[in-house]
């Protein structure tokens, strides 16, 4: 086995894709509107690429197979929550988009500041966004490191290589902005689609005759693998239901998902997109097949190793070039979403946390400031990653629960009689306070419910309780 072949292919794939993305935007002048939300001009195709591109990150790629391998039926939550997210989004996001269009909003924090006429709430929403985006970005780095280590057949530790790939993408988003990311998603999606079809169809057919036979073998080995434990245990039915509701509400609360929403050129493109997006979940079904196949072919992986399961099967049974292409697709699935996440975090800081007036109102200045902050956010995420690799999976669970605390504020903003800004602030603080408490206690379920869901309910109840608090009569 030759490690240089697979690694070289991954390198070429990443460089070509970023070059393609930059080529796509070579003649575009980057005003803040253009840089952060693509000039609000994306039609159905671009919007599809961007939204689907953000939803399918390396953790969908590795994690869906990993959970199918390590947990079985609880993994099915991934196909459910994105579908619920699209259904909720269909009713919520067009109204958010309309406010954004009217007031030229750039970030999700802008939306809070505008709807509730409170700059402080905007700052709080921005802080929440940045704080929970950073662990998500570091997670992508872990994904890249896993892929590069496997592609190098264990000959390199891949920390440096992952860092190099990461900073290439930082340079890419520095110049390309959101539109560059949408262009790059074109290649990324094509490669990921090919890799997923290989992993979920060709691989099971080759070893078992069909994906269904792979499932038969898993069920012979573990008869209860395809159903949930009924009731309130960890990963039981109650956990499943509360988790898909929680993450369904949170799916489009991410700052980068809101930026993608703003980039729509009209409401119709946005709504049609959300209606069609669940079709994409079929890719995840294929990743389950890949995970189940890996469970038979390479049993015995434990803990965080399960995320590597299907890549290890590819490494063992296929030539280096196949490993390189699949690994390259996986790396892109980490890098392109990381690019939009870094961009969203940087725009939150430049637009909402630092006052733009401080650096002059010029549009060029704002783009420049956002670009500088891209480098800052990337360095921060990279630093965190170097020091805190071990706790990342725990961090992601908290991050998803954390970002969802913005949902009640968005939902209540759609009502004719809105709650006061103070009540929304209190709700977010109560929700996040509870999450910190649960995390400190090491709790993930409370009488069967996902603790994030409990925090979300407490958040909404707080807003209802203090509905008029602090509002002028």
């Amino acid at each position, binding site marked *: 086995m030759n490690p240089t072949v697979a690694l070289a292919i991954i390198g070429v794939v990443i460089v070509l894709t970023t070059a393609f993305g930059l080529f796509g935007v070579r003649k575009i002048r980057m005003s803040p509107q253009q840089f952060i939300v693509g000039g609000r001009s994306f039609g159905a195709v671009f919007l599809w690429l961007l939204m689907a591109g953000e939803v399918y990150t390396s953790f969908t790629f590795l994690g869906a197979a990993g959970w199918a391998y390590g947990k079985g039926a609880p993994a099915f939550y991934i196909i459910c929550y994105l579908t619920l997210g699209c259904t909720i989004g269909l009713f919520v996001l067009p109204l958010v988009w309309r406010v954004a269009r009217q007031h030229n909003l750039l970030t999700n924090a802008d939306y809070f500041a505008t709807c509730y006429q409170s700059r402080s709430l905007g700052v709080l929403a921005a802080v929440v966004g940045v704080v929970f985006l950073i662990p998500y970005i570091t997670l992508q780095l872990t994904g890249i490191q896993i892929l590069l280590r496997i592609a190098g057949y264990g000959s390199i530790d891949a920390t440096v290589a992952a860092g190099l790939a990461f900073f290439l993408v930082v340079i890419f988003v520095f110049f390309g902005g959101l539109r560059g990311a949408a262009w790059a998603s074109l290649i990324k999606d094509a490669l990921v689609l090919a890799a997923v079809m290989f992993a979920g169809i060709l691989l099971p057919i080759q070893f078992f005759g069909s994906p269904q036979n792979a499932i038969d073998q898993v069920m012979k080995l573990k008869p209860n693998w395809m159903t949930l434990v009924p009731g309130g245990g960890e990963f039981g039915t109650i956990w*499943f239901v509360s988790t898909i509701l929680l993450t369904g509400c949170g799916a489009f609360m991410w700052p980068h998902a809101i930026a993608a929403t703003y980039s729509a050129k009209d409401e119709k493109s946005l*709504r049609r997109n959300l*209606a069609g997006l669940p*079709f994409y979940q079929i890719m995840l079904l294929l990743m389950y097949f890949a995970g189940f196949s890996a469970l038979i072919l390479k049993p015995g992986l434990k803990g965080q190793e399960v995320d590597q399961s299907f890549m290890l099967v590819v490494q063992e049974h296929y030539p280096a070039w196949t490993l390189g292409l699949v690994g390259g697709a996986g790396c892109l699935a980490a890098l392109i979403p990381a690019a939009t996440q870094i961009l969203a975090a940087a725009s939150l800081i430049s637009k909402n946390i630092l006052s733009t007036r401080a650096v002059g109102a010029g549009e060029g200045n704002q783009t420049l400031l956002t670009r500088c902050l891209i480098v800052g956010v990337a360095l921060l995420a990279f630093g965190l990653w170097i020091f805190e690799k071990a706790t990342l999976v725990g961090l992601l669970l908290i991050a998803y629960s954390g970002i969802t605390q913005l949902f009640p504020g968005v939902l209540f903003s759609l009502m004719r009689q809105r709650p006061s800004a103070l009540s929304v602030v209190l709700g977010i603080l109560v929700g996040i306070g509870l999450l910190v408490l649960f995390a400190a206690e090491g709790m993930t379920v409370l009488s069967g419910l996902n603790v994030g869901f409990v925090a979300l309910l407490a958040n909404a109840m707080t807003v209802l309780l203090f509905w008029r608090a602090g509002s002028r009569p």
Partner: protein
Amino acid sequence: MDDQRDADGGARPNAASLCVAAIPFCALVFGAFLANYSEPRIAGLPFFLAYLIFWVLTTPAFLWLANRLLERK
């Protein structure tokens, strides 16, 4: 601002569209309670997975219909 938001008569959620979208939504949410079985197998898939996949893939049809109901003035 509220008036401006409602004035263009665009897609404000209405009862009909919400009901249509609620069908696959509820089917998925309560799926864990209703369909948490391995048997019968459907097209080789365990029943629970087949049930979820069925509702995920029919969701676009329901959302398309909900869209039509939203767009109708």
